[in-house]
């Protein structure tokens, strides 16, 4: 029953906020997010039986929830942690508390549901649950060109979902069941299904060339939405490729491996160069998140190529680390905007003088996203690069995967360029107009960033904390 509680808690909180008093909205959301962390930890440490409710007899579809697999456990942890941080983050406009907190919790419930479902249908359906709140939050409370962006995002995500649905239905049709615990390679049409999955899941993870929705969406969305979307929900596609794609159509994935390698390089190098060119911090972070997806695709490519469980571990660890670090970045970027009124990098400067802890925390997460040793992303990235050479002998000569890995490593340099430059321009040097009268972070503003920063540090020093789930 604990697994069901993981979804019910946020959903009940949504109902309570919608029908209750707006003044209590934040309190209810905080309680729900904290309770969910407690339940998740209880479920992971004590181990719990799954939940199963038959909702349809023909075809046999069950609301089946379980946290037995290691990947689900890690993703569940990521979801509940980022949810708590997201509820703390951002500044909700006066009078919009209901929309703000119900949307945040709905997105969270969708993500958690998708990661702990063991039925293909609910796996897909829970992810879709987040579509409408995202649309509304960007469209109503977003920044800049919010309406355009909301449309674009929704159309991309709906397109990806429909393609994905076609792939999943072809799988369910061949396997004769929606049960994700009994996935096995299908007999025919592997290539077609694999392509549908790569496009479908790929669009949701902003795989090149279906990536152009992501950066504007994250830049425009209110902080909790970009944190949850970039940090948690986007990992759904990667999770799906590992858990469903690789299990069901390994040969089909291998068939498209060359294509995947080219696309992921485009994610890393092309989008990386685009990122360097950004003038606004939010767009830069959004693009960097798209770029970093390339590394995780690299781990998936390595998994398809050499089938080592090492590649899965690398992918999952980096998914976790990236989820935490990108959420923390968006949380802090939102604070920078709240304090200075702008995110144009060249209008800022010397922020470290008046807001030292903001500068420290941003520096920490900046270093993490570059891949500095000692922080979680490093552990993930280094494992990804190693997985590219897993089982490789010098006598074999360099294969496509190895060459891709070698080129991909240059992405680290690109990250360093844009991240350090942004840090220097925003925080160092003399204070400018915008940063003269800035206060440092208040206690409430620090909580989410410190929470996420600590996790980056712990996992960076002791990656086994996450990897233990995967053995």
């Amino acid at each position, binding site marked *: 029953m604990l697994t069901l509680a993981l979804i019910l808690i946020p959903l009940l909180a949504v109902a309570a906020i*919608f029908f209750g008093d707006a003044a209590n909205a934040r309190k209810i959301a905080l309680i729900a997010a904290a309770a969910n962390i407690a339940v998740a930890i209880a479920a992971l440490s004590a181990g719990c039986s799954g939940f199963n*409710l*038959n*909702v*349809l*007899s*023909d*075809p046999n*579809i069950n*609301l089946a929830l379980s946290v037995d697999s290691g990947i689900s456990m890690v993703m569940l942890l990521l979801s509940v942690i980022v949810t708590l941080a997201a509820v703390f983050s951002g500044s909700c406009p006066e009078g919009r508390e*209901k*929309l703000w907190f119900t949307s945040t919790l709905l997105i969270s419930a969708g993500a958690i549901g998708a990661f702990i479902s063991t039925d293909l*249908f609910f796996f*897909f*359906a*829970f992810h*879709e*649950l987040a*579509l*409408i709140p995202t*649309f*509304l939050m960007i*469209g*109503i409370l977003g920044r800049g060109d919010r*309406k355009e962006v909301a449309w674009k995002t*929704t*159309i991309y995500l*709906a*397109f990806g979902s*429909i*393609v994905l*649905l*076609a792939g999943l*239905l*072809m799988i*369910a*049709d061949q396997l004769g069941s929606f049960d994700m615990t009994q996935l096995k390679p299908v007999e025919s049409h592997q290539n077609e299904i694999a392509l549908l999955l790569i496009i479908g899941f790929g669009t949701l993870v902003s795989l090149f060339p279906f990536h152009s929705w992501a950066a504007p969406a994250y830049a425009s969305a209110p902080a909790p939405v970009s944190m949850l979307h970039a940090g948690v929900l986007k990992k759904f596609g990667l999770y799906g490729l590992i858990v469903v794609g690789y299990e069901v159509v390994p040969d089909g994935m291998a068939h498209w491996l060359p294509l995947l390698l080219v696309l992921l390089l485009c994610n890393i190098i092309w989008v990386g160069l685009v990122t360097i060119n950004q003038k606004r911090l939010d767009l830069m972070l959004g693009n960097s998140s798209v770029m970093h997806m390339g590394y995780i695709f690299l781990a998936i490519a390595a998994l398809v190529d050499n089938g080592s469980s090492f590649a899965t571990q690398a992918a999952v660890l980096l998914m976790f680390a990236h989820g935490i670090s990108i959420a923390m970045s968006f949380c802090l970027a939102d604070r920078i905007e709240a304090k200075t009124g702008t995110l144009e990098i060249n209008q800022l400067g010397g922020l470290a003088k008046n807001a030292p802890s903001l500068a420290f925390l941003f520096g920490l997460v900046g270093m993490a996203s570059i891949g500095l040793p000692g922080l979680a992303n490093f552990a993930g990235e280094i494992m990804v690069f190693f997985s590219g050479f897993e089982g490789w002998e010098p006598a074999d000569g360099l294969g496509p995967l190895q060459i891709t890995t070698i080129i991909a490593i240059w992405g680290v340099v690109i990250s360093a360029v844009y991240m350090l430059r942004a840090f220097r321009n925003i925080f160092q040097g003399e204070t400018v107009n915008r940063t003269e009268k800035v206060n440092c972070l208040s206690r409430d503003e620090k909580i989410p960033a410190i929470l996420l920063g600590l996790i980056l540090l712990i996992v960076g020093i002791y990656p086994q904390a996450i990897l233990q789930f995967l053995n």
Partner: protein
Amino acid sequence: MNSYLLEFLVVAIGVIMLLWEAFASPKNKSKLALIGAGGLTIVLVILILARNCEAWTAVPDWLSRFYTTGGYSLFFKSFALISTILVLLMSYDFRSILNKYTSTDNTDSNTGEFYTLPIFACAGLMWMASATDLVSIFVSLELVTITFYVMVAYMRRNVGSLEAGVKYLILGALSTGFLVYGIAWLYGAIGTTDLAKIATMELTSSYPLLFGLSLIIISLGFKVGAVPMQLWIPDVYQGAPTPITAFLSIASKAAGFGVAIVILQPFLASDSIGGNVQLILYIMAAATLLYGNLSALAQTNFKRLLAYSSIAHAGFLLLALSVSDFQTIKFYLATYLIMTFAGFFILNLIRVQDNSDEIDGFDGLGKRNPNLALALTITMAAMAGVPLTAGFWGKLFVFKSILTEPLPWPVIVIAFVAAAAGFYYYFKVIRAIYWHKPANDKPLIIPCISKYAIIILTVAIVVIGVYPIAIECLIGG
């Protein structure tokens, strides 16, 4: 007593109401809607309670050629009854607009028949559900169509309603011509109009037979709103009184599919011409999906949007028909009833209060009435087919059966593109609700009947979305 007496009972209710209407004081005629709804509810209860009783379902010999209680008749009868009840309830809340366009002094002195006609249509729909002979199908179909001619044009001081009535009359007559002509060719080709007999015959493919069948399929296309007979839908839907639009788009469409199942079942099952019939059906389905979804993209009027959406839904239903997946048709129609009625009840409210059926009419609904806005959001999400709402399952089953059959891939691709396009135009309504500023701050007064109808229908959308077994139990496995 036998089940076929139910139709007579419905007609009797209608006749008694007409008599009462003729002598009643001109003040209280809208009460007829409630009386009619009550009467039909009793019929519905009898139908459901007695459905498994053998003496009840037996059909006497003299009637058995024309009437059956088997197959899907029970489902389509309950469907007709439920939708007529809801239409009557909706009409009651619609009375102020109706009065405005039927009398000079805003009283309901001229509206009595409006609340009685749906009852006769309902009797026709019930007959249609049980009809097993092409002749009885034709007669009951005409009973329904003729009452609809009157209802569509009922607001006689409103030009839109009159225009809708004329269009529906002319095109309806045309489609009737197609149907009779098709039946004649069919009879000429195989020598019987008894569908039970046709089901046991060795059918051979011949041009007269195929020609007759094509004519019948085209005229059924008129009823369900499928290409090439879809042109009347937007104008008639927009012009007709809102409850009648709902009636047309739900009960009339469902009846069309009920008849299509009965007529086409033996032909689809036949080895010799099943392939040809299937080909016609899925080409029609693909064209219908494209037409409905692409035209819906540009609509600014909510009623027209629902019209194109109903064309689009007909496309999905036709796909299920083409692969003989009748169970899916039932399921799809049942969920379609729930979400479409929810949509029309809300539209009806806005129409009565703000006199608008443009999408702009929903501007700022999120501020004016957050609960109603939530209900409409859920309804639109369900129509778009967002998972965990009732509307998703029907589409899922259709996709599953066309992938299993499988139909040619261009048709499958069109189906998926159509489903994706749906997101755009339904979300346009959600956008109006939340993104735009309200045009006026007048609070919305929700009448009691509409309020409970909307609550029940919205809750049903969510419950079925998460737990579809609930509806499977209702419609039978």
